[in-house]
Structure formats: structure tokens, C-alpha cells
């Protein structure tokens, strides 16, 4: 493996700034890495070598001209295929968008381009971000770099695995119920779900608009913060985006990495742990807590009684919004079109045939669930009650913030499960997100950082949560934990992963 791909993004920036390496070299190194291992991992649905190298050249030229460059300029990045990329197929892991080439860039993609981050390609995901294993992709699953027979988490398994397998130093994900954090946990990487509104959603193909949030994925806390700073901020095209400046996330990460968490009040969510959680996951969690306490943080138990209803509420609100957001895939304007096998070809029959053929089973399940929950006569009992639960969960958080600065829990109850293991048991699959979902319902930020390897030798995640707009706390706690753990391990967790066997990629279809 080219040593360049082993560096952190921050280290890459140092070498770029000192002209020891060029962005073209760096980008090429990652393209080569993708070429050699992505046949085994399948993190990417599509790579864009020419485009990425051209962007890298532009970054090098800008740097050579002495331009004042944004911090990550020249560092390549992978983008989840749920974000619109102008001129580049954006499938959302679905057959129905197999041929959709957006006419516009998502705001975050635009920001990447403006900041000179070459886009390596689009990463695999559960169809329309619905799933916790990336097995629901219409284009085949992604494999966990730690064990190719296991899931990389989901829905953003592609972004997490790409970063975990050193195919990219950075990636963008989206998190509706844990789609950034749970994959980070099971692949030994770092993922952040920013405060709702902290990052523009314009161009993020919506699953559940009131829960979706774009966020950074990387192998360490500082890189995640650096990327957060690039993509964050108000966007007039997303009226739900916050007017505040991006929180001081990079400063907070550096503070944490320096070991400064003295006096920080940490609350352990009683309801997110214990029964149903894998022993090794709990052990690593407790050890992490002890480390933070050793650095001067105070730890106490906090109860959030309404969290037990979070999963239920989530599986009413999310499908309700999804059923409406996914209505537009009707063959009338873009995407695939399937004519009915029999009977007259009318708009309605084409819509039906296309949606039947174009959507996978999990997407259909959620559309049906949501359509039902919003129906006249059921609305109050389902959607209405779920919104009440949402308010209760927000109140639990509000009460907690009166006692502590951050709340913590294991990110996911288990380490990566085997591919296929939960595919026929949706409820078991949904439970993978039991600890990540309350965050989305409350609109607050959350981070997952590696806490070590569980008894099965697979990565486990440590989750920290902060009040809305206080994203900086996450990076401080995350940085401190990461520094303390790496001290113990003698380097990053990812370095402990086995080398991935070289396997050439299946030739991808050409764009469009």
C-alpha cells in the first residue's frame, strides 16, 4: 500500500503545504488503492478518475499560485451517492435512479469543489439510505474492511468502508437515524451527525426531511472536524439551515486531542446500554469512560425514560416523510420508466409499474408504512402520537443538559454482524440504530469514535451527544478519547486491521 493513503487528512495538508507531495500524487494514490481493494470492499458505486485528477491539478495550480487556500484543499474525498453531483449519475443505491444525472450540485458538493477537494467517486449505500447494513443497495453490498464477510453498517456503509480501507481519507455521509455513526462504529472510523440545520441539505436526496443531516466521515476526530468546517454553515436554499456560523469544531478537536476535558460533565444514558448490548461493546465503552474520567471529566448516570419509545416513534415519522419524499420517483420526469405488462399505458399505470420494478423491498416496506401512518383516520394515532414522543424525547435531553455537557453511550449495540444475517428480520436490523435514533428525533449533534476491538476482534463505537449548536463539545470529548486510546494502542485503531486481499474491481458501467 502506498504510504500516502495511510496518512491522516491533516498530515496530507502539511505535506501539500510544504510541497512534498502534490494533490495529483495523493489523488492518484487513492485511485490506485481503490483499484486494488475495492473489488473486495465495493465501497464505490462509481469512481471518477479523470474528474478527480483534473480537480487535483486545479488544486495544485491554486496552491502554486500562492492563493490563500481552504485548509483541506487538495485532499481527495468520497461522496455518498445520496448527494446530487452535477453531470454525474446519482443513484441513491436504487434501481429507479440508475440513469439520473443531476443538473445541479448539492450545496455541500459545491462547497467541496470550491474548497478544491477532488471527488474520488460516489459511495455505496442502502437504497435511499434505508438500512443499517448497505445490503439494501440495488448494486450489491459493501464489505467491512475488518472482515469481508461482515456488513460495514448502513446506510452509509460505502463511505465508512472507503475511509476504513484507506481508499479515501475523507467522505461525506448522511444520517437520518444513525447512517453516519453506526457504520463508523462497526468499521473503526469516526463519523459525525451535526446539529440539524448545521449543514445544508440542499441536494441531499431526502429520506425523512426533519431527520436527515449531512456529516463528515474520516479516520480520526481532527479530520472529521476539518471537513465539518468545510461543509457547515447557512444556505439560503435550505431554509431549515441555521443562521449561526459553524461552531469552533477544529479548535475543540485540538483542545480534546491535547487532553483537555477537565471539568467537562459527562452523563451516561442509562437506557442505552446493558441488556441487548454485546459484552465486548460494553467493556470497551466502560474503559473509554474511565479514560475520560482519568483526564478530569466528571461522569454520572442520567436517565432518559422516553428513549424506550424512540425506535417506535422513529419508524412512524421517518416512513411518513419518506412516503411523501419518494413519491416523485414516478417515471414522469427522470429515472427509469417501466410500462405495465398488461392493460392500458396511462400515467397511473406507468407510475405503478415503475415503482414496483424500481424500488427494493425495504423502500417499499417504508413507503407502505408511511402511507398508512398518514392516512385519514390513522394520522393522529400514528404520526400524531409519534410527534408527541418526539417532544418527550426532546424534553429528556433538555432535562439532561441541566446536569451534564455531553451524554454518552455505545454507538451500536453490537459489532458488525454477518452479511445476510438480519436481512430477513427487519426488526432485528432496526435495533442496530436504537442508540443513534434519539439524536435525530431531537435534532442534536452526535459523534461516534472507535472505542477499541470487542471480544470478537471487531471495532466498537463510543457515541457522544451534545446540545443543539454545541457540536464543538463532541469534538473535544472525541479528541480526548481518541488521544488517550491511541496512546494505549500505540497508533490509530485502523492500523490494527488486516491487509485487505487485492481484488480488481468489476468494470463499472459508464456514466449515464
Amino acid at each position, binding site marked *: 500500500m502506498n504510504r500516502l493513503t495511510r496518512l491522516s487528512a491533516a498530515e496530507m495538508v502539511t505535506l501539500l503545504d510544504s510541497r512534498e507531495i502534490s494533490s495529483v500524487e495523493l489523488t492518484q494514490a487513492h485511485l490506485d488503492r481503490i483499484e486494488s481493494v475495492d473489488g473486495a470492499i465495493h465501497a464505490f458505486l462509481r469512481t471518477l478518475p479523470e474528474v478527480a485528477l483534473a480537480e487535483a491539478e486545479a488544486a495544485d495550480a491554486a496552491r502554486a499560485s500562492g492563493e490563500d487556500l481552504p485548509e483541506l484543499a487538495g485532499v481527495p474525498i468520497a461522496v455518498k451517492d445520496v448527494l446530487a453531483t452535477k453531470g454525474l449519475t446519482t443513484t441513491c443505491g436504487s434501481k429507479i435512479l440508475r440513469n439520473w444525472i*443531476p443538473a445541479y450540485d448539492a450545496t455541500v458538493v459545491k462547497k467541496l469543489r470550491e474548497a478544491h477537494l477532488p471527488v474520488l467517486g460516489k459511495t455505496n449505500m442502502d437504497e435511499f439510505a434505508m438500512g443499517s447494513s448497505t445490503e439494501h443497495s440495488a448494486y450489491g453490498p459493501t464489505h467491512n474492511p475488518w472482515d469481508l464477510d461482515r456488513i460495514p453498517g448502513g446506510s452509509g456503509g460505502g463511505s465508512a468502508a472507503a475511509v476504513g480501507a484507506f481508499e479515501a481519507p475523507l467522505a461525506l455521509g448522511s444520517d437520518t437515524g444513525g447512517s453516519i455513526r453506526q457504520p463508523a462504529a462497526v468499521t473503526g472510523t469516526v463519523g459525525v451527525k451535526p446539529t440539524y440545520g448545521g449543514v445544508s441539505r440542499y441536494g441531499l436526496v*431526502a429520506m*425523512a426531511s426533519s431527520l436527515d443531516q449531512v456529516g463528515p466521515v474520516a479516520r480520526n476526530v481532527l479530520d472529521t472536524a476539518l471537513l465539518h468546517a468545510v461543509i457547515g454553515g447557512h444556505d439560503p436554499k435550505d*431554509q*431549515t439551515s441555521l443562521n449561526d456560523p459553524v461552531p469552533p469544531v477544529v479548535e475543540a478537536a485540538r483542545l480534546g486531542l491535547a487532553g483537555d476535558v477537565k471539568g467537562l460533565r459527562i452523563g451516561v444514558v442509562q437506557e442505552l446500554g446493558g441488556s441487548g448490548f454485546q459484552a465486548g461493546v460494553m467493556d470497551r465503552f466502560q474503559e473509554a469512560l474511565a479514560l475520560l474520567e482519568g483526564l478530569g471529566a466528571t461522569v454520572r448516570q442520567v436517565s432518559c425514560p422516553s428513549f424506550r419509545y424512540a425506535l417506535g416513534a422513529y419508524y412512524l415519522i421517518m416512513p411518513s416523510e419518506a412516503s411523501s419524499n419518494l413519491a416523485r420517483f*414516478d417515471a414522469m420526469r427522470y429515472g427509469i420508466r417501466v410500462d405495465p405488462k398488461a392493460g392500458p399505458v396511462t400515467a397511473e399505470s406507468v407510475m405503478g409499474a415503475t415503482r414496483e420494478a424500481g424500488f427494493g423491498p425495504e423502500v417499499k416496506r417504508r413507503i407502505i408504512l408511511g402511507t398508512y401512518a398518514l392516512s385519514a383516520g390513522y394520522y393522529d394515532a400514528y404520526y400524531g402520537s409519534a410527534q408527541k414522543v418526539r417532544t418527550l424525547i426532546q424534553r429528556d435531553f433538555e432535562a439532561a443538559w441541566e446536569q451534564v455537557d455531553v451524554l454518552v453511550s455505545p454507538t451500536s449495540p453490537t459489532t458488525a454482524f454477518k452479511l445476510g444475517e438480519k436481512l430477513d428480520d427487519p426488526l432485528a436490523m432496526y435495533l442496530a440504530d436504537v442508540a443513534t435514533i434519539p439524536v435525530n428525533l431531537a435534532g442534536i449533534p452526535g459523534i461516534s469514535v472507535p472505542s477499541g476491538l470487542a471480544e470478537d476482534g471487531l471495532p466498537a463505537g463510543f457515541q457522544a451527544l451534545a446540545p443543539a449548536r454545541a457540536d464543538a463539545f463532541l469534538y473535544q470529548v472525541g479528541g480526548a478519547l481518541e488521544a488517550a486510546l491511541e496512546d494505549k494502542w500505540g497508533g490509530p485503531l485502523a492500523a490494527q486491521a488486516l491487509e485487505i486481499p487485492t481484488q480488481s474491481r468489476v468494470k463499472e458501467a459508464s456514466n449515464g
Partner: protein
Amino acid sequence: MADLFGFDEALERFDPVLGIEIHVELNTKTKMFCSCANNFGAPPNSQVCPVCLGLPGAMPAVNHKAVESAIRLGLALNCEVAEHCTFARKNYFYPDVSKDYQISQYDDPIDFDGYLDVELEDGAVFRIGIERAHMEEDAAKNTHVGGATGRIQGADYTLVDYNRGGTPLVEIVTRPIEGAGARTPELARAYVAAVRELVIALGISDARMDQGSIRADVNLSLRPRASDPSKQAQVPFGKRSETKNVNSLRAIDKAVRHEVRRQAALLASGGAVVQETRHWHEDTESTSPGRSKEQAEDYRYFPEPDLLPIEPSRAWVEELRLTLPEPPAERRKRLQGAWGFTDFEMRDAVNAGALDLIAATVEAGASPAGARKWWMGELARAANERGTDLAGLPATPADIAGLESLIAAGRINDKLARQVLEGVLAGEGTPEEVLTARGLEVVSDDAALLEAIDAALAAQPDIAEKIRGGKVQAAGAIVGAVMKATRGQADAGRVRELIIEKLGS
């Protein structure tokens, strides 16, 4: 077509209850949720973007100016303006909504609990309760191609123009309108006319019914006449029909009348009115059934998660209140008093759409009677011939005031004025310019007139004799001859005076 009752007969047995929904398309520069131009008549699908095309990932952003228009309309309709209101999604699959949901308002409209006083021809005033006025985006325009009717049934295919998709609308919904009896059709028409007038005064819409920028849906139901008329209001409402897109004032009256007659015939024969939407047919002046409410869709409304609630500050609302125009009805009363028009003249001017033109003409210096005479006479005829409305004519109020001042100065007479106006309408310039170019000025030079008179008298000595003999009325023939000789450019009164002076009776 079902049998119809006579209208009067229907009214003897049943009491009509009316409800009207009016969609007002706002004339904001951009659409409701994106920055596309809000134009009528641009080439199909040329005013579109990711947002109004509903492309995956695109998000709506509320047009502040549209909210402002909705608030001003609400205030003009004497509504409360919500301190907090939201948008909702109305979900239904149809190609004319690009997202397969329409962003609208549902249970918390921006304007609510208002009223509008509507005056009928004879001066009777009805107060129409306004339940709500809410904001929404318009759907795209479908054109069904092939088939005989232009409707979707039997069409070969449908073309969709998303230019109209996402343009801002305000929908005004009345409370049930009871007690108008036989005047219900007239009241329906007068209400729509009043809203149209209000919207024009506010300047928030083009208000062209023919282009669909104002569209009305008419709800009508009948209930039995109570034996004791004072207890009529206690009789429960009957099932109603909703006649869609009745797109002229005249058609409003006709559609209500038709529904009264149709429903009366149905009910009287022991049948039942089906709660349904109906289509209005201009050609046959009748309605036909559309979608029945029994098979109506469940729109699965829920709060639009892509938009924040709208919370107009009270200070802003009060600021907007100060921008309201004088209410059209009050303005009419004030102008009628100032101009000394009879009720009939005033109503005529209003119905012809001439009120603002007359006001502007008076403003430009003409007498009210003079302004009225031109706009309601010569110009109305010209508009009629050209198939346009008065405002569509090339003559401006300033032109008409100019014409009047030429008459007042004695530079042209009535007959010449008509020729000048003809020139103005032909685009030859202002009245002054036409006058010069066509050489139409009145001959006011007495010497020139006397010359013409002498010639006429010489040509008709017998008439001259009669006049000398005291038959003054015989002077008419000489006047006529002089007018002919001067090609109408003489002042006939002055000619008569000169003849009589000359022959001194």
C-alpha cells in the same frame, strides 16, 4: 343532460346555500418557492429549475413577497393574520405536481375570519364571511392532446408545462353564504367581481380570469324551504356540488343558476344530489360530473418539513395595513359623489371596467361627464370592435383629457373630435399631433366663414330670401352648405350667428 327545473320554481321549493373558493395567482416576480420567473405565456418548460421541477434533493424556499401579498389580501378581506402558520404537503400522484405533492397550507392558514361586503346592482349589500385565505403553489399545466373533448378521457397523450408549476396562489374560501335566495347567482357573480376588483386595487395579481390568474370554484347545495321562513337557517344543509374553474363573471352567474335548477329537479323527483366536483361547459352552459367525493383521494396532509413556520411580526402586519388601498366600494361612493354620476351611470362605468380610466382622465384635467362620454361611448365601441377591453386600447386617459381640452378651447367640435380620436386609436400620436397632422382645426376665422356664407347664399337665393323674410329656421340649409364647404371644420353655431347677423331679421 338531466332535467332542469325552472329557476323560479326551484326557488319556491328550495333554499340555495352557496360557497365560493377563489384562486388568485399572485404577480410576484418569482415563483412561490424558487427564483424562476413567474411569467404567463413563456415557451413551455422554459421557466423551470431543480426546485419547481421537483428534482431529487431540491428544496423549497418561501418567497417573502408572496407572503406579503397574502397578508395584504387578508387584511383587505378584514381577516385576522396568523401569528404562526405552517405549510403542509398535500400528497397525490399526478404528473402536474412535480413532487407528487403540492405545498399548501392546511389547518393553519395565514389569513382567517374575515368578511367582504358585496353590493348588488340595486344597492343591496350582502356581507360574505371569509373563512380563510391560504398560500399554496400552483400545479403545472396539462394539455391533453388527441381525442374530441380536450379532456384526459380519450386523449392520445398529455403534455405538461411546468412553467405554471410552483407559481404562487392564494385561495380564498368563503363561509356558507345563506339567505340570498333568488339573488344567489347574482351575489356569486358580484362577490367574485368584488374580489377581483380588490385584488386589482391591491396590485397583487394580473386578475385575468381568461388567463386563469383568477379561478373560481362554486359550491352549491339546496335545502328545503322551511314552512316558517324565520326558521330557514335551522334547516340543515343539503349535499353540495363543487363546480370547478368557472372562468368568467358571466359564467359564475350561469353556473350557479344551472346548479340550482339541476339539483332542484333531482331532489324534487326524489333523487339525491351526489357530493362531487363538476365541470362547467361554456358552450352548453351546463355542468357535468367529475370526480365524486366518495372516491376522493386521501391527501395525507402533514406539516412540510422542508420549511420553517411563517411568523409575521405584528409590526410588519401593521406596516402592511398602511399600504392598503381605499376599499373599492368606498372609493366608488366617493367618486360617484364627486363626479355627480347617477347610480346607473356609475354601475355602467364599473361594469365596463372604465372606472379607473375615467378617474385617471378626470385627474388629467377632463370633466367627469366628458371623460364618461368618451370611455363609455366612442371608446367602448372601438374596444368592442377590436375585441379588447378598454385598458387594451391605445388611447390613454391623458389622450382623452387632451381631446376634451381641445373641445373646450373651441379648437375642434364634436365631429372633429371623433376624427382626432380615430387618429389616436390608429396610433398617429396625441390628439394635438393628430390635429396638426390631419389639419382638422375648426375654422374660427369669421372672414373665411363669411366668404363661405356669401357663396352659399349666392348659390341658393331663394333660401336667402326666406331668411330675410323672417324664416330663421331656413338658415339650417345654409349652415349645412357651409359645413360641407369647410369639410366640417366650421363651428356650426358661429356660422348660424353670422348668417342671422348678416341677413338681420
